[in-house]
């Protein structure tokens, strides 16, 4: 399964990005890593270009909040991305915040899976469960 990943905005936290890349590969995903400092358009363009089924955005410096609000409007401009699984993880706010507020807010921005300060492997387990569930739902239809 193809996954696009990268760090959104003017954020250069490369360590997490490399570890996400490694971990996804270890789980058998085909990874297209756009690296740090990536803009939303680039993520969606890459999803179209590769036909990826998952988009995993990471963010550490709190910039995700600003970019998150643009997701729905921008994604609507692309015709083939309705089935794209949208995931975001990292430290999703500036300063401190709690997951109870943050998760619903990001789901509202258009993300299926939101991991605020969640351990990397726990987050990827959630992704795998989500993919399985989605497959089941499809075959049940």
């Amino acid at each position, binding site marked *: 399964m193809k996954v696009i990943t990268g760090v959104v905005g003017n954020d*250069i936290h*490369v*360590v997490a*990005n*490399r*570890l996400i890349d*490694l*971990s996804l*590969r*270890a789980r058998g995903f085909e990874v297209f890593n756009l*690296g*740090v*400092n990536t803009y939303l358009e680039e993520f969606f363009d890459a999803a179209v270009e590769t036909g990826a089924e998952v988009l995993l955005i990471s963010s550490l410096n709190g910039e995700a909040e600003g970019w998150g609000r643009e997701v729905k409007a921008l994604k609507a401009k692309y015709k083939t991305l309705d089935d794209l699984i949208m995931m975001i993880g990292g430290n999703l706010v500036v300063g401190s915040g709690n997951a109870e507020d943050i998760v619903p807010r990001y789901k509202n921005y258009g993300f299926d899976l939101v991991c605020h300060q969640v351990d*990397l*492997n726990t987050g990827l387990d959630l992704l795998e469960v989500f993919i399985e569930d989605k497959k089941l739902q499809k075959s049940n239809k």
Partner: protein
Amino acid sequence: MSLLQEERKIILSNEYVDAFDFAEVAEFVKNASKDLFISNHFKTKNKMLVQPRGGFPTYKKQFALYEFFVEANVDVLPLTIDSNTRLNDYATAKKMLRLSEENDVDMLNGYPLVSHGYRTTRKMITHFNKPVSLRHGTPDARLLIETAIASGIFEIEGGPITYLLPYSKNFPLDKAFLYWKYVERVCANYSELNEPINRESFGPLTATLVPPCITIVIQLLEMMLSLEEGVKSFSVSFSQTGSMNQDIVMGAVIKKLAKHYAAEIDCSDAAIHLVYHQWMGAFPMNKDYAEQLINMSTVIASMVGADKIITKTREEASGIPTKEANAKTVANTQYTLRILNGLPNVVDEEEEEILTLEVKAIMEAVFNDSADTLWRKVFNSIKNGIIDVPFSPHIINHNEMITVRDAKKNIRIIKRGSVPIPDRCYEYEKAQCDLAKDTTSIVNDIVHDIGIMQ
């Protein structure tokens, strides 16, 4: 007029530069006090020089910081440049400087040297009459170093590789080589007027599990690129790895090989120095622990035999340090150096041999590239993965190499990618590690290995 001089005129005819007077600057450098030249201190002092980090936006605050450092018996003053100036955005730097001056709030993370200009800055540098080291991170530092030298700053840190691969995603590497060639030549030319201008490479790179052979290769290549342009005083550097033995081995090998490769290009007349950076990775939040870590770094630097140490502060984990905390580290480090006597001589021949073989093999592969000049060979070698820096964000970097810590916390290569690590060395490196683990536990180990000092 030479091509270089024509280029200098273009660079300095910048709307943010107030009438650069070439003749006056040359006259200033020629008659400048020997105390301003770190190259002269390296020659005459027989102690490790202590240099902190630090830069504030306004002249007033920078002056106050220097007063604190001098009080703490500093050897070398730092001038850390703000990030707008580093990215050549002089307009924003100028605006933020004005805001900082008017509101007493720091709107920049360093000293905007180009905005202050050399006439102003020179007053401060000559007032303190201590050597100053320029710390920046600029891929195109042409205007910045002209301004620095005109101000009396006679040590310039950086290089085309070490200031690009850790900091930038897509600044073109070939351009960086050419911009730094200008820097080397300007430094070389000024060096003929008085004591040499010292150039220093930035060995810590990403400060994240970079194996010694990669650090040393990049240090040697930047040294050669500098010396071949005529620079006569150069410092190679590296940062604390997390294993005392690995630091000592690195120090021994880099000193030996720096001499060797300088001789290879007929530059044995250049003075080569070794700089050690206190731990550059994530620091403990606990400020007392941070002081313990800093103190330990100083001990290791002494074991390594460094000529200069660059310090951290107890406030490292929480942001830009206060001048008080910064000066405190300087005083503490000087104290540790004063009482640290009778150090044992530690030599690990096997580790030295392995590391030397690795470095020589990579250097050989770089020299064997078919390009006609050294910088092009180095450029091609980075492009094709012969040089691969773990955790570099730059798109040109291969990111194929994987490193972990062994049981003694030495950084080991468990996947070499396209880096020509000789088979024997590769087997040795891997033999120190537990390779039976799956990738998930290796990733967990890496997370732990990065944060060992926390």
